[in-house]
């Protein structure tokens, strides 16, 4: 299946007889990007799987009301980000654990996960990421892994480019220190 432009998807979705086709095209185009974005935040595959489905349900429900004042992928990314952060907050409330302990839980699930095949350096990088506050981790993932530009991240998160730059630089410095610390071994 070839990837189609967002405009074509939106056009097809606006018509009743091609709505399902448009939705299938949209899933095909964005499922992997959204999955990886969510997975890097929640770490666990099963949680990511559930969240991706929730994201697309929301997309299906709200796409008819989507306005073209933002890009489609920006809009879907925002939904996915909000769903993931809501999930992490609920997890934190459910377990009544402070944020750093949530990171510890995520770190444990990272080690125990059967769907992780990175080497020691990759594992250490992920551990370093889990020491960051959620927002910094989110920004770092979008910049480092998804290779999004500041203005794109800004459109998704609704944060100014200047604030994003600051957050990202802080995150990078923390990770560099963590990675160069030989005392931290896995």
């Amino acid at each position, binding site marked *: 299946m070839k990837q189609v432009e967002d405009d074509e998807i939106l056009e097809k979705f606006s018509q009743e007889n091609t709505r399902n086709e448009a*939705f299938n095209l949209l899933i*095909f185009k964005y499922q992997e990007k959204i999955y*990886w974005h969510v997975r890097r935040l929640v770490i666990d*595959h099963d949680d990511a799987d559930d969240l991706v489905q929730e994201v697309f349900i929301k997309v299906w429900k709200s796409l008819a009301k989507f306005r073209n004042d933002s890009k489609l992928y920006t809009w879907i990314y925002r939904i996915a980000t909000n769903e993931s952060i809501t999930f992490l907050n609920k997890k934190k409330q459910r377990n009544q654990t402070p944020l750093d302990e949530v990171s510890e839980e995520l770190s444990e699930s990272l080690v125990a996960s059967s769907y992780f095949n990175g*080497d020691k350096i990759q594992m250490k990088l*992920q551990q370093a990421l889990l020491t960051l506050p959620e927002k910094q981790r989110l920004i770092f993932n979008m910049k480092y892994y998804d290779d999004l530009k500041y203005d794109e991240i800004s459109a998704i998160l609704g944060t100014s480019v200047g604030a994003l730059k600051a957050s990202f630089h802080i995150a990078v410095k923390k*990770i*560099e220190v963590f990675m160069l610390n030989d005392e931290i071994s896995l």
Partner: protein
Amino acid sequence: MTETKNYKKMKTDLENNEWKAEAPYLASLPVKNPFIVPEDYFDTLPEAITGTVYTNELKQVIPAPGYTVPDHYFSSLKDRILTQTSEESDTEETLKRLPSSEGFSTPDQYFQKLQSKILAQTVEVAAPVLKQSKIVRLWHSGLLKYASAACFVLVAAFGFYLNKQTYKPEAATAAEIANEQMLYDIDEQDIIDHVEGNVADAPKNTATNAELETYILNNYSQTDLSSEF
């Protein structure tokens, strides 16, 4: 216009990559996704998503199943649960207050002996016993053997005798039937006469006892007679 565009792009690239100078080690690492997914996950994901979306739509279209609960069910539920748990805890407390001893006793050193008893029985049962086939003698004594043989001979002889008595050749039976048929045709008086006539024709013993005595005395000696009797 193009120059301005290129300048903007260069500036953006510079901004987006200036972190590499601040974190050279991190910048030197290859950007690699360490996570993996189950096999064929992304092939099946669209189906899973559309399935979930469809189910979700159905939930909204189909009205609630219409189950109801009694009035104040949920408001009183907590109290009922607490009551039940307190009753259960009371029962537990009562059980705890019971003496730990059951009141039963066993003979002295019962359990010490029990083990050896069980072992003795189980070892006995478990010991391999070669099961010999039992030979049952048909004849317990010689006398019984010969008596049986005699019985067999007698039964066989009796059977043979009966067989001979009841056996009638087919020809003989036919002749008998023919004679009987002829007898019906002959007058009864003729038969009586014939039988009487036959008796009249039979040789009659005419010698007297005195004549017989004389004959014996003349022809046999006394020795012959005594040896004969």
